């Protein structure tokens, strides 16, 4: 074939026609456009928030689709084509410098979201998201409304729960710290609130807990644990002050439960996605030792061995200095068999 400007140009036009037909027009014509079970149109305010999301380029760091392999906050449901039928333009994104936002709605309360946009390092001390404090109150409102709508009807359900509990928590908070503390305790199942921290508050454990506190909690509960971190200004109810209410019942299980699940309706987020179990026990020890001034561990000296149901065997050697003696219950298991005689050669 002779390569002339005309043949090359024509060939290219034919190729482009063929390709656009297969990869652009055909998909458009054959695409199923049925709504998914969770999608709903946005309200006018949420639409305004979406415009702000676009203007401010949030798509540079946030994706909006969940893959079958994803965990994180939005790893609740794999995205479907029908989730996007109202989106124009699409905001799928191609990078996750920050977490996916497909299911962001209702994960946090509105006051958490506002504090986060004012300065992401308030609720999330290690964040690299820029501040959006320049938004006017109206714009902030709209952006929060949009973010809280992400996840469609699933988000609406979560928001309904957040709002319900938010009212109760605000009421409790404004009846005084004492009342509030008792109220919060009434929300924790008794098997948790009576459980001591199974891991001892050793020096290392507390140091590890401190690291977690500095990465996760410090700008809300404050460096002194008095609830006066910089985020507090934007939150209602305010972050809990650990230093005042020593006479209330504190236990490792109580803190663990509240940190793992958060306190729905308040800015206190859940950490079950961010922190593994051992880290939650450690931060509970740190909070107890440093701020509350109580040791809430069980006195279990079995450091390094997983805490299981059977009680410890009698100590065969001196406990290490500092370990608290604890009563030894008879073991429910038969004593171990004597070792087998050596195998004959």
């Amino acid at each position, binding site marked *: 074939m002779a*390569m*002339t*400007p005309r043949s*090359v*140009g024509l*060939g*290219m036009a034919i*190729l*482009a026609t063929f*390709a*656009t037909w*297969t*990869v*652009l027009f055909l*998909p*458009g014509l054959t*695409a199923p*456009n049925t709504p998914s079970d969770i999608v709903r149109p946005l309200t006018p305010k949420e639409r305004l928030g979406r415009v702000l999301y*676009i*203007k*401010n*380029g*949030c*798509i*540079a760091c946030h994706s909006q*689709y969940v*893959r079958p*392999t*994803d*965990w*994180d906050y939005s790893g609740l449901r794999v*995205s479907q*084509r029908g*989730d*996007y*039928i109202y*989106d*124009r*333009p*699409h*905001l*799928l994104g*191609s*990078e*996750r*410098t*920050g*977490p*996916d936002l497909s299911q962001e709605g209702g994960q946090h309360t509105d006051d958490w979201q506002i504090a986060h946009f004012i300065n*992401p*390092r308030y609720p*999330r001390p*290690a*964040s*690299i*998201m*820029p*501040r959006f404090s*320049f938004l006017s109150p109206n714009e902030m409102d709209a952006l929060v409304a949009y973010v809280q709508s992400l996840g469609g009807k699933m988000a609406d359900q979560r928001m309904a729960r957040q709002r319900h509990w938010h009212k109760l928590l605000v009421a409790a908070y404004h009846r005084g710290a004492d009342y509030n503390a008792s109220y919060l305790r009434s929300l924790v199942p008794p098997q948790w609130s009576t459980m001591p921290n199974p891991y001892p508050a050793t020096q290392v454990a507390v140091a590890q807990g401190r690291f977690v506190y500095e990465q996760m909690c410090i700008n809300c509960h404050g460096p002194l644990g008095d609830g006066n971190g910089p985020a507090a200004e934007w939150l209602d109810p305010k972050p809990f002050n650990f230093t005042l209410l020593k006479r209330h019942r504190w236990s490792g299980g109580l803190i663990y439960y509240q940190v793992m699940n958060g306190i729905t309706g308040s800015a206190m987020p859940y950490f079950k996605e*961010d922190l593994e179990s051992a880290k939650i026990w450690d931060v509970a020890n740190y909070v107890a030792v440093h701020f509350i001034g109580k040791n809430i561990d069980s006195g279990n000296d079995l450091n390094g061995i997983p805490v299981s149901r059977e009680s410890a065997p009698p100590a065969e050697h001196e406990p290490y200095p500092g370990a608290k003696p604890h009563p030894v219950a008879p073991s429910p298991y038969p004593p171990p068999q004597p070792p087998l005689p050596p195998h004959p050669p």
Partner: protein
Amino acid sequence: MSHFRFLDDSPGSTARRFIISGAIWFFVATVVGLVAATELVAPDLVGARGLLFPRIRPVHVNTNVFGFLSMLLVGCILYAVCRLSRAPLYSEKLGNLAMWIWNFATLAGLITIPMGFTQSHEYAEYVFPIDVAIVVALVMLTYLVFRTLARRTEHLLYVTSWYAVGAFVATLIVYFLGNVMWHAKTGALTGMNDAEWSWFYAHNIFGTWITPLALGLSYFWIPRESDNPLYSHALSLLGFWPYFAFYLQVGTHHLIEAPAQPWLKLIAEINSVGLLIPVYAFLTNQWLTLRGRWWKVPDSVVLKFIFAGTVMYFFTSTEGSLEALPSFQRIAHFTNVTVGHAHLGLLGFSGFIACGAGYGVLREMYGEIWSERLAHLQYWLMLIGIGGFTFVLTAVGLLQGSAWRNGETVYRVLPEIFPFYIERAALGCFIVTGAAIQVYNYVRTAQAHRQRSERALYAVDDTAIALRREAEVAGD
């Protein structure tokens, strides 16, 4: 350059101005990129909303693609097309007009995106009026290329000109359709269909625009600089048609894990792997053209840049085909692996070829480069920069991908990737310095010497053609 004329009609002025504009935009875009990289390390660095990371990241990207790469490559390709057809540009005035429109479009984008005017699709952020300006300039340039080729006195159409024609024709279609220009306000369709369209566009702005222009310039310079005939006409053909046929259909490989149509993903995956055929055909052709002349590579700054570009083309394309496979994508998608790949492709491959070709054109126009030593220095700075980028971004991307796959949250991984972000910003300094050297060197070259006459240019022009003829005669 004694008296400045807005619509200059002196021969070569279009190419020269395109090239120098491209060099200036390269510097601007990389400075913006450096600020953006620093903000990822120090998010509270600036408070002004227009300078926040999410607003300047698209400025960095678009200024690089449309300012730096497009302008530098267009300038060089216009020059190459003239030389290869042994005819002056059809109209320098029209070319200059296109050059100004293109410059104003880039400048307008630089201003409007930070103000929040964006259509949000990647690489298509420019709002409607800027899109119109670019399409108008594209139409003018396409017309120029066709009219210039129609006046050619050299009968043979060399490979570089195929790529020029192919790129301009295909890009006109891709740009218009991909920007959904009949919806002026949003520039978007609805839902997943919108995603499929916008990724068709985003992929092809590289596939039918940046890359073919760079490939064409490699075909132009490697035989000339090495004084060897082009290795094979058959490989040129194999590298050309399949290239466009495959490339136009791979857009959906950006959506492998999104709920795009499954058959469309399959088409994209197959074509992405198929792309390796024209890619390797091209590379074989270029590298075998250098046979017996490898020693020339380190001496000629032009050849050095362009050869390095082809090597990085090898890596980025091979990596790209891997990324299109679901098993690799599972770890790499959404991470900095993609960012590394994009830099290797745009800066490493097409950027190196553009910079080298720019030096080549200016050297021919003005007799010599103002400072060869500075050019070599620039080469090494940029090579350290892009090599480091690729390494750091790929490493951090794999780290992110595997941590996420293991259930760590994005927030928890931030402190782990922090040191990499610092390295990345530091490496950015090398590239910015390289870009600054380039502007200085280009401008000084154009100032220090008198431009050669068109007649003198003809004297040097025909090596590539002659050599290729020789290859044909030899029965290739």
